[in-house]
């Protein structure tokens, strides 16, 4: 089912063609990525670099049809302390339809310019999506798997204009990255503030680099895990009735700027999807919009 004809939606195809075309035309770079899908670390995009990311998730659905939700991310390093990112979301629900579900625009700022034991990053995002969005980029409030069981024809009629803010705390220690995100989200209607969290830890298989170029050596592979879930709302700050996930991650960073990431996420209670399998490919271009001195 996962690899059925629904797997490549028109959105994914266009995104893939754009990514491949741009790959041929622009200089590439390799950044220091942490391999998380949900959690964020304090590592921002390098200034002048544009990362094009095509991600997707496959979710199992009790009481409804399984789905695949691809999204495109364009992440750009404005300065050393400011990264901006634009998302286009879509989804295909098996035996239903493929729909465009909206866009998001996020900004991340590092208020402290020095490296510390714990490094804070402030995150603010505007979301304009509809109720059919199934990218599950964060879990907040009482989000649960039955939200995604609503048929597309009905869900697309719900429009969500939301502001999301995160406090990202992140540390690097002996090759490990540890990230803790505290999330709050507000629908710009009369809904209460919703809260959530995301935790991540990751490490490269090998800390030192080898002296020769290689694709399959251990230094290019990362292993990690993330855990995320909801924490209720301002009306009811609680774990009761919320959903939670634990997701191991493996990532492969090719020397030529391509990252491939895979993460099976497992629901930890009855409110969670049994499985959210996430995968993605990203490619980084350097020197976009950066002025250079004549050589």
């Amino acid at each position, binding site marked *: 089912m996962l690899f059925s004809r629904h797997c490549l939606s028109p959105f994914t195809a266009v995104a893939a063609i754009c990514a491949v075309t741009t790959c041929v035309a622009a*200089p590439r*770079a*390799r*950044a*220091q*990525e*942490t391999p998380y899908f949900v959690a964020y*670390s*304090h*590592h*921002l995009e*390098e*200034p*002048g*670099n544009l990362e094009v990311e095509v991600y997707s998730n496959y979710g199992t659905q009790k009481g409804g049809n399984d789905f695949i939700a691809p999204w495109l991310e364009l992440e750009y*390093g404005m*300065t*050393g*302390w400011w990264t901006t990112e634009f998302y286009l979301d879509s989804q295909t629900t098996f035996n239903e339809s493929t729909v465009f579900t909206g866009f998001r625009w996020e900004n991340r700022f*590092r208020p402290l*310019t*020095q*490296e510390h034991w714990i*490094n804070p990053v402030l995150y603010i995002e505007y979301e304009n999506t509809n109720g059919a969005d199934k990218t599950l980029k964060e879990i907040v409030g009482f989000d649960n798997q039955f939200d995604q069981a609503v048929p597309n024809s009905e869900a697309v009629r719900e429009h969500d204009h939301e502001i999301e803010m995160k406090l990202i705390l992140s540390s*690097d220690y*002996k*090759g490990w*990255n540890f990230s803790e995100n505290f999330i709050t989200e507000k629908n710009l209607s009369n809904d209460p503030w919703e809260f959530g969290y995301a935790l991540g830890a990751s490490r*490269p298989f090998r*800390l*030192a*680099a*080898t*002296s*020769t*170029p290689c694709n399959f050596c251990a230094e290019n592979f990362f292993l990690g895990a993330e855990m995320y879930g909801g924490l209720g709302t301002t009306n009811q700050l609680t774990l009761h009735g919320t959903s939670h996930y634990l997701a191991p991650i493996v990532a492969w960073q090719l*020397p030529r700027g391509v990252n491939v990431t895979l993460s099976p996420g497992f629901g930890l209670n009855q409110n969670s999807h049994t499985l959210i399998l996430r995968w993605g490919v990203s490619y980084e271009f*350097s*020197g976009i919009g*950066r*002025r*250079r*001195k004549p*050589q």
Partner: protein
Amino acid sequence: MKHGWMAGVLLFTSLVTTASSDQSLDSAVLPSIARAPDKVRDKKNPYEGQADAVAAGEKLFRQHCAECHGDDARGRGRAADLRSPGVQNATPGQLVWFLRGGNLARGMPSWSGLPEQRRWQIVSYLKTLH
């Protein structure tokens, strides 16, 4: 007595010369690198003298640094010339400290996401660029 007085002058002169040469070395290092705390300044590079580390550092340099500093490391735009005395006069400890924190206000990213071993390998390579 006369010899003792001359020895004193010589000792004083050599102390002053040593101190001033240290000072000139400091002032030649880029200010953002010279801010490194004393405890990291004299840290020894664990890969010192290892040809493999230099080769690994060159590979990492091409992957992470060359896009701004150029393949020849001579700097482009706001990115510093890594062959300049301002960088080459810095100790390995100062350089590895600077790589970790970067200079975000001036566009140099923090490379704390690279394991420390890889930052030392990059420094090994940089120190060959006289």
